[in-house]
């Protein structure tokens, strides 16, 4: 009986914490550029860019422009994509045309929240964009979180593509 009660307590203590704000975008940017103040500008999503976004996401991006922060060969992005029904807010850092870091900043759904854990997001480290707009390394999915996993994969590709359009993209980065 006691193990069952403990399990129930654990279940009810874990479940409510699954959906929530884990880090604000401001804090994410501050943490990413802790030593140097980044430049902050916008990338307009028009014309060919819009078409490429549609190829990656399967639909238009939610806004007409995205803001990014850059310094040296690094850019940081805060992007959103819908998992099942609600958007997932994700912070991404691109360095020398590769993913340096992915962090789920806010998760709004009941299921699929496992994607916020490092055991999943660490798979994206050093991934780059290959011709045809796929990631250069496979990302293992999570049972029961397929839609959230797919959303993060699309955002990773999108951030790499956006980075390639900025002055911070490394034209000489080793592949």
């Amino acid at each position, binding site marked *: 009986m006691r193990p069952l009660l403990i399990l129930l307590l654990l279940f009810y203590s874990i479940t409510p914490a699954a959906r929530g704000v884990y880090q*604000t*975008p*401001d*804090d994410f940017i*501050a943490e990413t550029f802790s030593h140097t103040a980044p430049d*902050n*500008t*916008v990338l307009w999503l028009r014309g060919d860019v819009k078409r490429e976004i549609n190829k990656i996401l399967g639909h238009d991006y*939610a*806004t*007409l*422009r*995205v*803001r990014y922060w850059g310094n040296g060969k690094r850019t940081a992005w805060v992007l959103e994509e819908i998992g099942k*029904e609600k958007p997932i807010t994700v912070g991404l850092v691109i360095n020398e045309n590769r993913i340096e870091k992915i962090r789920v900043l806010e998760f709004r759904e009941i299921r699929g929240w496992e994607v916020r854990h490092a055991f999943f997001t660490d798979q994206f480290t050093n991934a780059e964009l290959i011709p045809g707009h796929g990631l250069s390394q496979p990302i293992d999915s999570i049972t029961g979180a397929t839609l959230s996993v797919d959303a993060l994969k699309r955002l990773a590709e999108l951030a790499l593509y956006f980075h390639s359009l900025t002055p911070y993209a490394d034209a000489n980065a080793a592949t």
Partner: protein
Amino acid sequence: MPMQTQPPKKRSRLFSLFLWHRYIGLVAAVFVILLSITGIMLNHTSQLSLDHTPVKSAWILSLYNIEIPEPVSFKLETHTLSQLGDQLFINETPVGESASRLVGGIDAEGMIVAAFAAEVRLYTTDAELVEKLSLKRRMNTPLSAVGKNADGHLILLAGGQAWRTDTLFEKLIPVNPAAATFIAANTTLNNAVRKQLERHYAGHDITLERVTLDLHSGRLFGAFGVVVADIAAILLIILAASGVWLWGLRKLKARLHHRHPRKHPRHKHKAKYPVTTNRE
């Protein structure tokens, strides 16, 4: 000799069961059809887009007793920016949700700036979202208004301090708030517009999927509907049980008749009406 009337023969239990089965079936038929139709709809929610289709019928929405909050609106040069609950509208077009309160709106550089306590949003004049931007870290206090100075520059007001910026929001320059004009909130909306916003607000969270689920369970009609749905379920169980029982008895009778035809005739003929005999 007086006529003797034979007492009517008792109806067999089997026949009684059959009659009950028939009448329950007739009553339950309505529920079977309703549950089947709603069940099929729920099985194909995505294909039918039931979860993305808001309900617009005033009658159905009235069943949910949704409380409509007071709107907050700002009259801009050619548009009206309104918030009803957490829903934002440009004129009558819904343009998104915000849990934060709408504190101001203004036209700037050909765009519409909607200011909330914790963020600003930029829209085109066609109500397309340009960007959502949090200024919390840069301003430290919640936004309280947005306006323009005499030169047409965008002015943000927060905690008594004003900042001049543009629609790129790259720089925030402290300025004197007295030099800016801020549009005050206007809670009086045109009746027709208000009705439209209220209808959209009420229907936003109530989708066809929700209504179908509530119809399937009976909850659409409150506690009474739930009781009726429970009774229908019990009737269906009785129907299934009586049907199996009748089928089983028929099978048994047929088997017994096959083995002992005289002892178990297939049909026992019973008098439908009292039998009257004259004895002399």
